[in-house]
């Protein structure tokens, strides 16, 4: 395929820029962002290849530097762990073991494990198993994605021919499935027990981004060159169906985001276009997307939707998130365990990071955030007053 050939000719920096979830990876100060899955702590990868770790409980901001830490494309904190951060770099995967009680601002590079495999660079995407035992890494030039046992630094190659490498990975919150996008017009959904996969050809282009519902039964994804959100549902995972992914026959369009004119405080604005990145909050009630503008003069915007996954899937527009004048959204992420609703974090092109809380009472018992004890929700419908809908 043409895109595969193209991707092989690109330099690795161009390749990372093309496949990164950041809108303007090459030019923006913030290149990657990752919330810790259990605590109020996040890591930010900067343009100068350093990583800063911010913690709400401590004033020290450790800055991580390593000679192999170049062109960071993605980061992920290990679940069920205090402070292990995996970093996708140009030549390898670095796994930082940070001491959560340490006051040092410059952890030595001896704290980092180097996971490398010949032919597996640049690494553009990482995903930890929600059970914290395995790490997946993917590179657009390697047809195999790697399953790492980080503690012993051993890896297993999951090879599947056709479609080129793997550009984007998303592990479903229940741990049962993994989305693996390729540089060509096909993506795969792996089942994470016996590691078999289903192949999904798309019509227009490659899968740009995707996200899972908390129970792993629904995948939303977008395709390059189309301004719509697709939804793909999977039969409920019960563990008995070894080696079956269980996807439905076809994906359905759930939202059309083509350019429309909106009346805003600042006058009329045209917003719409392709989706660059998409995140779903852990309760499954809010979906945030970065929409790249279609015309050159239109701005990328963050749109938020209200969603509900059961009994039927619903997706309702909720509003837009606007930064300071001239600031364009680069990266978005939801806090993994915000107790009062959802907390959206947006990294702006100005280098600022803002947290936008959404207060609501979940309609369903939260599945993916075991931090909270399951408070029985009295059978009320979700129509509680929303405090800060934009």
């Amino acid at each position, binding site marked *: 395929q043409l895109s595969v050939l193209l991707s092989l000719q690109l330099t690795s920096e161009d390749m990372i820029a093309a496949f990164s979830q950041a809108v303007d990876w090459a030019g923006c100060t913030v290149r990657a962002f990752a919330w810790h899955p259990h605590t109020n702590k996040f890591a930010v990868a900067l343009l100068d290849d350093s990583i800063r770790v911010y913690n709400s409980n401590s004033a020290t901001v450790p800055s991580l530097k390593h000679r192999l830490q170049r062109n960071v494309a993605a980061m992920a904190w290990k679940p069920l762990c205090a402070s292990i951060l995996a970093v996708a770099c140009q030549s390898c995967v670095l796994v930082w073991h940070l001491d*959560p009680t340490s006051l040092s601002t410059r952890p030595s590079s001896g704290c980092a494990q180097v996971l490398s495999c010949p032919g597996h660079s640049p690494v553009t995407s990482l995903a930890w198993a929600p*059970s*914290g*035992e*395995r790490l997946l890494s993917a590179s657009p030039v390697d047809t195999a994605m790697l399953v790492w*046992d980080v503690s012993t*630094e*051993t890896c297993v190659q999951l090879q599947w021919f056709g479609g080129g490498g793997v550009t984007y990975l998303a592990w479903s919150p229940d741990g049962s499935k993994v989305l693996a996008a390729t540089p060509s017009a096909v993506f795969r959904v792996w089942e994470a027990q016996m*590691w078999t996969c289903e192949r999904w050809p798309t019509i227009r282009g490659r899968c740009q981004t995707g996200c899972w519902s908390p129970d792993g039964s629904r995948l939303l994804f977008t395709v390059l060159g189309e301004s719509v959100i697709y939804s793909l549902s999977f039969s409920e995972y019960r563990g*008995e169906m070894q080696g079956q992914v269980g996807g439905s026959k076809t994906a359905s369009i759930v939202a059309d985001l083509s350019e429309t004119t909106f009346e805003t405080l600042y006058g009329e604005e045209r917003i719409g276009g392709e989706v660059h990145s998409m995140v779903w909050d852990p309760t499954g009630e809010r979906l945030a997307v970065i929409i790249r503008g279609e015309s050159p003069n239109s701005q990328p915007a963050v749109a938020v939707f209200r969603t509900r996954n059961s009994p039927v899937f619903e997706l309702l527009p909720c509003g837009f998130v606007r930064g300071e004048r001239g600031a364009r959204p680069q990266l978005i992420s939801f806090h993994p365990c915000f107790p009062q609703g959802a907390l959206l974090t947006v990294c702006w092109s100005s280098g600022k990071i803002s947290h936008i809380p959404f207060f609501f009472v979940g309609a369903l018992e939260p599945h993916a955030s075991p931090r909270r004890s399951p408070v029985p929700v009295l059978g009320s419908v979700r129509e509680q007053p929303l405090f800060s809908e934009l």
Partner: protein
Amino acid sequence: SIDRCASSSPAGECWWSVHGVGLVGPGPRSRSLPLSPCRHWAGGSRSPHAVSPQVLGWRVAAAITWSVLLLPICTAAFIILSGLDPFHPVRWISNSFNDLYTSYVIFCIFLMSMVIIIISIFNIEFYAVVPSIPCSRLALIGKIIHPQQVIHSFVHAIMGMLVTWCATVMTKGRFQFLAVSCTPSEGLEDAVPQMCLNEYHLFFLLSGAFLGYSYSLFYLINNMNYLPFPIIQQYKYLRFRRSLPLLIKHSCVESLHFVRNFCVTYYFFGYIPKVWICTTMDLHTDGKLHPLDTLSGLLDLSLFYHTWLSGVFLLMTWYIAWLLFKIYATESHHFPIQPTFAQETDQCLPKILNSNPPLLIKFLALQDLMLLSQYSPVRRQEVFSLSQPGGHPHNWTAISRECLSLLSDLTQRLIAQQEAAAAANGRAKPPVGELKVPPQTPGIASMSPLVKPSLMPVKTSPGSDVGSPFSSPALNYKMGVVDIKSPWHGPVQSPHVMRRGPKLWTSVSDQQMNGSHHESFPVLSAARTGTEAVQPRFIYTWLQNKQEQCTQNILVSSQHPEASIQAVFSDAQMHIWALEGLSHLVAASFTEDQFGVVQTTLPAILNTLLTLQEVVDRHFKLPHVSSKPPRISGSLVDTSYKTLRFALRASLKTALYRITTVFGEHLNAVQVSTEHKKRLQQFLEYKE
């Protein structure tokens, strides 16, 4: 156990059982975890394990069948490559295909199938799920000249010779026959043609024997009898396909090394077999041909290519048999939790975990426990269920008890090792005389003198094998729950313990070696010819004596600390699965356990895990203990046993976090000691 075997069971019973679990491994605990029926004879509890022949039999049969079925494909590839003729491609291909159907090729395939079956039988008899790691060079030499290994090498050398004979037959040409007719070199016109030795053929046969022997040697040195379990589950075909390129590459490279070594050996010692064959078979040497034990004779590209190719062929067929056995043996097996019929009770997971099945079955059971706890809500429900009349949580009790006893056993072992290390550091060299092994029942994991009485109040009799993970679980269970107020790091070390400390690493194993040697030898020698048996025995006994003489001076100093640490954690895969299984079950119980059966064991589980966590932490702070795993190159030979301790450390922490993350603040209501409460609080705050 070896000792007991020989005394209480019919002689044949123990023949193979000694192997596979470390004959000489002077680890901290003598590995008396046999794979054999001996255990049942010894223990007196003869629980019938219908499951093991059933499970293993099918797997072995399937593995052998597949390796035999793949043989014709390898043979075809070999024939095509051996007739390589790049200048006449059409003739080459057509000739090769014509050769495939000839009767002698079919005969060779038949013969080589026999070889594959024998190789597979050796794989099956020698496999081990717990590798035996020689802690010093001397121990390794001891392993190499151990009678069992000698048999292994001998049979492999014969098999190698057979395979290369087949290869010469299939290659045809000048390599085919040992004796060829030749005319005497005098040049007399009417001279009668006489039979001459075809040195190429001899060279081939000897190279086969050499390759077979080298294979056997590397099999031992690289611990290739160790069955590593994969880090992710995959279908057998995919696993095989994934390993195939590595296998081919490994065979090619290894064959190159072996053939190079063989050429050197032949250059120096080649004349011995040549002369011998010539005299015994009354053959002449052909004067026209170059003798091969010269430089010019060995610089024959075609000879080298064919030797290398037959080496690749040999190694590939054998490695395929080995790989298939590994893949089949480590495939997960689905054990039922509750019996559907009364006669299936013995095959249930809780039953198997609590009995002493062959180690492989135990491993498979624990692997299945890990998988069901992670992926199968339905089977988890069965674990949490109550027995129908009576309402007892038998399943959960049995499973959790076994897991906890495994974990507390590991805790004890680590404590013993740490004490030994402390003792070794504290007192440089105890007098040799004091290290004489006390008359004790051999074959028992003799940790008993090392662990303090305060820790093990229950065990007193010298015969009780607390060290073994399969000792009475109830006992270990109790010990795990005992609130250990950490007396290990206190300065109160009885001189008794101090003095005996280093013995953990040396004398116990010596004794073990003695035991296994003396007891198993009569049986073995019966199966072998006299002269062969006597020589190793002599050397072996000599080595034993030598070893005893310089116990401290040589052994301890030459002991590789890394190897002895690996030996402590050699069976850690079991503990990893026990940890994962337990923690997933406990985490799932938060929402799925309707009767609260898990709650009653929660304090014990937390106690055991936190104690183990403390001990493991302390282990990684010992001197000589690296905190990072060594690099593992992606080769065919799996060395994952070298890094098991890192995996254990990681999964222990993950297991604790899994429980604390799910239970959260509710853990404050669980009764644990204050020290552990502090630790738990740190886990709750994600500060560990």
